[in-house]
């Protein structure tokens, strides 16, 4: 089930990132199962799904650190993995692991990657300064990395992947395991990438992160994209404007309420002992009379995700 057909709309420029029928198996496990995904140039696309959906494998395949069993991948017109090094010179990658060099200073960490990303020698100092500003660590430039706080390290990690001003940026779970305050800071940093002209593919299992930062979201489950579109469009299409949550007194009442809502033509989802009615604004008065009054709230991407996959994300 996809909200928009795979492939770019007719007449648009070639996508910055393109995956076609990509399959990756690990023994009996199929991590990525015929993935089709295009990321048009200049947008932030959030790849949203629970742990194990195949997001990280997809990210690794884009840097050629994981080789697809079949399918085609191309980044800025370079076939991956065949011409992957060329693609990687134009691409900035921020991985999940904090693999900063702790003995080195903030500036040195940036300088090392400016060199690895092949920024010409004469331009490296300027690239490093830009990285420092981006990470808001200009005043800490000569501090050893192991003296930084967790939030500072993450900012440096992101700036390190952007030090060469890449045209394509891959962010693999950029805020995983961080406390909410640091997450907010990083969202600000990632948000600044928008409008800079770069194409960003960000994997996340945080709904809020995907919703706030992405122009478009691709919902991934069991190695496939199950829906794709702007967050507001996806929500409108699959969950309507609002959701109403009811607390049935037991399994029987739950089943009865579900049946009533379904008879009215609306989808539901269960979360523990709560029954959520999607597109609650369309709930017929006759059904409402039977259900009583629930808690009304705005629909969100989680509703879409659970409805489409039966799985939960955070």
């Amino acid at each position: 089930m996809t909200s928009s057909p795979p492939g770019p709309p007719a007449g648009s420029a070639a996508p910055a990132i393109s995956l076609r029928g990509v399959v990756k198996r690990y023994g009996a496990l199929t991590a990525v199962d015929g993935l089709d995904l295009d990321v048009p140039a200049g947008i932030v696309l959030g790849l949203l799904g629970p742990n194990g959906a195949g997001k990280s494998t997809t990210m690794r395949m884009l840097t050629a650190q994981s080789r697809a069993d079949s399918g085609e991948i191309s980044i800025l017109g370079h076939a991956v993995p065949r011409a992957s090094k060329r693609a990687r010179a134009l691409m900035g990658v921020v991985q999940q692991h904090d693999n900063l060099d702790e003995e080195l200073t903030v500036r040195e960490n940036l300088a090392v990657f400016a060199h690895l990303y092949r920024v010409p020698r004469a331009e490296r100092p300027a690239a490093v300064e830009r990285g420092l500003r981006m990470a808001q660590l200009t005043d800490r430039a000569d501090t050893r990395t192991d003296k930084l706080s967790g939030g500072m390290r993450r900012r440096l990690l992101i700036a390190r992947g952007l030090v060469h001003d890449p045209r394509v940026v891959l962010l693999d779970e950029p805020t995983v395991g961080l406390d909410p305050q640091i997450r907010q800071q990083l969202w600000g940093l990632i948000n600044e990438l928008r409008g800079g002209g770069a194409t960003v593919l960000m994997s996340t299992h945080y709904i809020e992160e995907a919703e706030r930062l992405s122009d478009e979201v691709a919902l991934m489950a069991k190695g496939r994209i199950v829906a794709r579109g702007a967050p507001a469009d996806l929500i409108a299409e699959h969950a309507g404007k609002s959701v109403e949550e009811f607390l049935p007194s037991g399994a029987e009442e739950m089943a009865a309420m579900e049946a009533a809502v379904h008879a009215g033509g609306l989808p539901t989802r269960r979360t523990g002992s709560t029954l959520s009615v999607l597109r609650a604004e369309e709930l017929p008065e006759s059904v409402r009379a039977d259900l009583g009054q629930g808690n009304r709230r705005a629909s969100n991407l989680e509703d879409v995700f659970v409805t489409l996959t039966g799985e939960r994300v955070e």
Partner: protein
Amino acid sequence: MTEQASGATAARTARSAPGRFEVAPVLGVLAREWALYRRSWGPTTFAAIVEPVIFLLAFGFGLGSIVGAIGGYDYIEFIATGIVAMSVLFTSMFPGLIDTYVRRVFQHTYEGMLAAPVDVRELVTAEAFWIALKAGVYGCAPLGVAMLFGLPPAPTMLFVPFIAFITGFGFALLGIWMSAVVPSIKTMDYIISGVITPLFLIAGTFFPLDNLPPLVQTFAAVNPLYHTVELVRDAAFGMDPLADLGHVAVILVFIVVAWCLAVFQMRRRLID
């Protein structure tokens, strides 16, 4: 970086065939090593110099006072040249084995580098090259100390850094290969005791091999370190050009084999 710079990078990258081995990434990895070395040269240098010196003093003067001459040399001369080879083995094989393992498994350093335009061949080459450079320099330390104790200097000793470099390159690659073979850091004990110890003892480092059983002599002949020991002794006491070219050839073959093994196994570990 400016638009222009982005274009320049792209143009430079596009000129080469997509899968080609490039020097730029090797230099990038070396630049990182240099930055790290500037932080850690103190302890590294201390260990690399003080350890062989202690060996030299202990064996040279301790055992040397009993042994006197060995294989036609004063024992201090014999042992000093042997310790050069031992020092090269230790300063290349241990970093190759342990540092590479730690960076790959615990620090995820290579995962980060391979996301940049660097491939496994370039990464392995650069890591081994850096280790070999250090081995080339530090390997000379025991010789210098031995000179203080009366080893007569010879012009051909200027070959020693080169001998130490190629040997260090080979053993760094061997260490990198083994770091990618061992399933866990605990199993490195098998390598350290089962591989490194016999390598450095059965090479003519501390005792001549002439009177040992044929099996041991055969092992020595295929042990690259034996050829290093022979080269260093010839550099110190008189070259034997034909034989020495043979020793160099063995070490070069060793480098090629170890490079292929290291790249193959590291690729298996780093790319799935």
